[in-house]
């Protein structure tokens, strides 16, 4: 039996392969003639089978054998990628995931047998892929281009042996690319600047070609283009090639697999380091000892570098979770009998690993909702003159220190009158609220609210948008909804880049200090004279022709003591709204290690957490979106009263 460590390694590898396979399969559904995808699916099947066999999972290996064979036929063009093949391969992929979850080899596998029987039926009636051209006889040549790592020579590698081997197996023409050679004075004789392009006889197999690079696999950038079929009308008619999703880490970069907990631990340590550094800086400043202050500055620089580095290690592209969404849309489309497409944009946008992990469920829920409630059924769409295929678009992008994730559909939009009726029925709003009320749509995020007329298997479970909102708020994010009747709904999530350490602005009210997340701060202005003694406290500031409501934190937080004669207003933004926060003094920037509040305080909405200051005191972090929402409420009240 395998020891625990080997087992963990196997699980991790097999898990990654299963996911990568799913990505390729789903992409293949849309681009059935994409060689790269076919190769990638084959490669994953092949490696998965090999890994399974190596780790004693003969059941996985033997189950996958037939699929490997099928994809080999797809590769050589004797079989086409059909939606049935993709669907069947996806269920095979799920079956393998199940087998792996079992942990032990499975002796009897009726489910697997059934999938294989369906595969056999499919392959017997298979037709050759259209792109394979009139006949299977390969013409032309493999186009192989490769780059060896620059330190190959320094490490004793001999590229000429690779060239010799390529010639031996049937390379017709080998050219060196010289564009990478720098000017003479910059040349390092031990560095390899050349890369090569070779044409290799089509009768040679890809494995043979790869074999030539056996001793140079580390850092090798190898691109193999299959022999071109004589005519390729089918694929070229498909229009310009779409940008391809990143399927596998780029070859040439060496990667390392690290358990996520170690990264969490590392982040904790960095948090402690940043706090200790703040204490040191505080002590150094008090001591007025120049030598100590200079060391403290060095440590500060290092700690900041360490923080940025650690956070960048933790950054994960949102593309890491999108395969699940593709799969979900595929499955939901089949379940509901609605043709659907999922458009993904900005998959390269990165967020902290924890944020990404905790974003998956809410997004799954939103996508399911869009597919189920948002998009009309096919007949309705046809009647409305809309394309029959419903479109769901998930896009991500940066906006300052936040990431915006929007999910939109081109469905019927949210029915405001139904939202209003339901909200009144549930006692969420009084009947006096008009139908064009701004805040009406937001009611869908209230607990227990659900407008679907029929409870469906997919999304009508009574819990819903309120759970989504809570999950997003737990990530210190906000959620917003916009909808246009007949045109669709857009849900916008704003998320912080990280949950661990932020840049903060330390402010003082009375003798108490608080942190405002710097990313939310627009500017700081002096409180105008005429507002200085305002007791009732709240009014508007005229900032470059726009009126900004402001809150006196002093009264909001029930601070004691007299206000500073020169109070400042910190202008903060959340979403599209700006408000001013009146404070006594600005202390300065503060590296803020966020500590969650205990359950005893987690209900206090004005604070998103706490942090430690250089002198060891605890400071609370103000929750800007919450304060802005109050400022907005205040503005509305004032307008109504006027």
């Amino acid at each position, binding site marked *: 039996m395998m020891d625990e460590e080997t087992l963990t390694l196997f699980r991790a590898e097999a898990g990654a392969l299963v996911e990568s396979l799913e990505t390729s399969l789903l992409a293949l559904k849309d681009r059935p003639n994409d060689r790269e995808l076919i190769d990638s699916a084959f490669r994953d099947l092949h490696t998965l089978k090999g890994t399974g066999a190596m780790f004693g999972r003969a059941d996985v290996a033997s189950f996958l054998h037939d699929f490997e064979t099928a994809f080999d036929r797809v590769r050589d063009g004797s079989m086409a990628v059909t939606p049935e093949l993709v669907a069947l391969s996806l269920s095979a992929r799920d079956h393998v995931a199940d087998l792996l979850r079992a942990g032990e080899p499975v002796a009897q596998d009726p489910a697997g047998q059934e999938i294989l029987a369906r595969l056999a039926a499919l392959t017997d009636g298979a037709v050759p892929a259209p792109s394979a051209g009139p006949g299977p006889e390969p013409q032309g040549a493999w186009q192989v281009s490769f780059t060896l790592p620059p330190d190959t020579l320094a490490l004793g590698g001999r590229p000429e042996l690779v060239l010799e081997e390529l010639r031996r197996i049937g390379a017709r023409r080998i050219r060196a690319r010289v564009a990478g050679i720098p000017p003479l004075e910059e040349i390092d004789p031990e560095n390899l600047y050349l890369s090569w392009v070779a044409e290799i006889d089509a009768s040679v197999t890809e494995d043979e070609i790869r074999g030539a690079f056996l001793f140079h696999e580390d850092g090798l950038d190898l691109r193999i283009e299959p022999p071109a079929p004589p005519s390729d009308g089918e694929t070229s008619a498909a229009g310009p090639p779409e940008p391809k999703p990143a399927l596998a880490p780029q070859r040439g970069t060496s990667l390392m697999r690290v358990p996520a907990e170690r990264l969490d631990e590392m982040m904790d340590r960095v948090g402690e380091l940043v706090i200790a550094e703040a204490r040191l800086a505080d002590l150094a400043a008090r001591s007025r000892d120049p030598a100590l202050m200079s060391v403290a500055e060095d440590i500060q620089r290092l700690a900041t570098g360490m923080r940025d580095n650690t956070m960048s290690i933790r950054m994960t592209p949102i593309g890491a979770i999108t395969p699940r969404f593709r799969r979900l849309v595929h499955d939901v489309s089949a379940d509901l009998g609605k043709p659907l497409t999922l458009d993904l944009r900005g998959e390269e946008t990165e967020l902290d690993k924890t944020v990404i992990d905790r974003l998956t469920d809410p997004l799954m829920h939103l996508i399911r909702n869009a597919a189920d409630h948002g998009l009309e059924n096919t007949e309705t769409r046809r009647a409305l003159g809309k394309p029959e295929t419903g479109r769901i678009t998930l896009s991500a992008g940066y906006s300052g220190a936040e990431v915006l994730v929007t999910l939109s559909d081109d469905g019927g939009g949210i029915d405001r009158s139904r939202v209003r009726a339901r909200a009144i029925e549930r006692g969420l709003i009084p009947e006096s609220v008009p139908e064009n009320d701004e805040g009406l749509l937001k009611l869908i995020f209230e607990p227990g609210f659900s407008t679907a007329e029929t409870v469906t298997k997919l999304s009508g479970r009574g819990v819903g948008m309120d759970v989504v909102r809570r999950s997003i708020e737990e990530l210190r994010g906000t959620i917003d909804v916009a909808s246009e009747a007949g045109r669709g709904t857009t849900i916008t999530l704003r998320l912080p880049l990280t949950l661990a350490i932020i840049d903060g602005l330390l402010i003082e009210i009375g003798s108490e200090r608080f942190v405002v997340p710097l990313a939310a701060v627009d500017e700081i202005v002096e409180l105008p004279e005429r507002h200085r003694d305002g007791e009732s406290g709240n009014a508007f500031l005229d900032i470059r022709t726009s009126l900004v409501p402001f809150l006196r934190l002093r009264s909001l937080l029930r601070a004691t003591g007299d206000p500073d004669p020169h109070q400042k207003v910190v202008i903060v933004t959340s979403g599209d709204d700006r408000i001013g926060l009146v404070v006594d003094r600005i202390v300065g920037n503060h590296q803020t290690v966020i500590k969650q509040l*205990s*359950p*005893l305080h987690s209900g*206090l909405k*004005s604070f998103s957490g706490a942090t*430690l200051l250089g002198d*060891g005191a605890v400071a*609370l972090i103000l929750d800007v979106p919450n304060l802005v929402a109050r400022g907005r409420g205040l503005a509305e009240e004032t307008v109504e009263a006027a």
Partner: protein
Amino acid sequence: MTQEGINDQAPATRNVVTFDLCGEVLAVPASQLREVLEPVRVTRVPGAPPFVAELVNVRGAVVPLADLRVPLKMPPGADGPEARILVLEIPLDGQEMVVGIRADTVHEVTRIGPADLEEIPTVGSRWPPRFVAAIGRWRGHFVTLPDLAAIFADFLAGPPGRAPSAGSSGLAPEPETT
């Protein structure tokens, strides 16, 4: 909810820490005690109920500081020269929660055996009986073992308007506990 072992059917001899609060002697199980702190700088939490109105830094962790005078209906008082903070680990919802509690003075770790325990009087007690785990005797004084787990669980589950999950106005002054 009860503190582990203290009012079991056959209570074993337990190590407890005795301390004074508002002229009364209280005790908590020594197994729950992490450390005793000298008074340190505390941070007020605006809007928090008086029972847990402050935060304190305990070796890099932000820990809520509770004042048992509130649930035990003792008059509020200022810190004396002997004042200490007991940092405790209290089981709550299946997890250990670290909290600090204020004490006027901390005496010692002592053993309280079954013979030292008294019946909890059902009437005449100033304190809500569900907050008292046991009453014992120590150096000729009555010593009360408050049921901290019950006190905190009660606070978290508390009636609307007092529980921290109550409503959106976390900044509004909360009514007094109990």
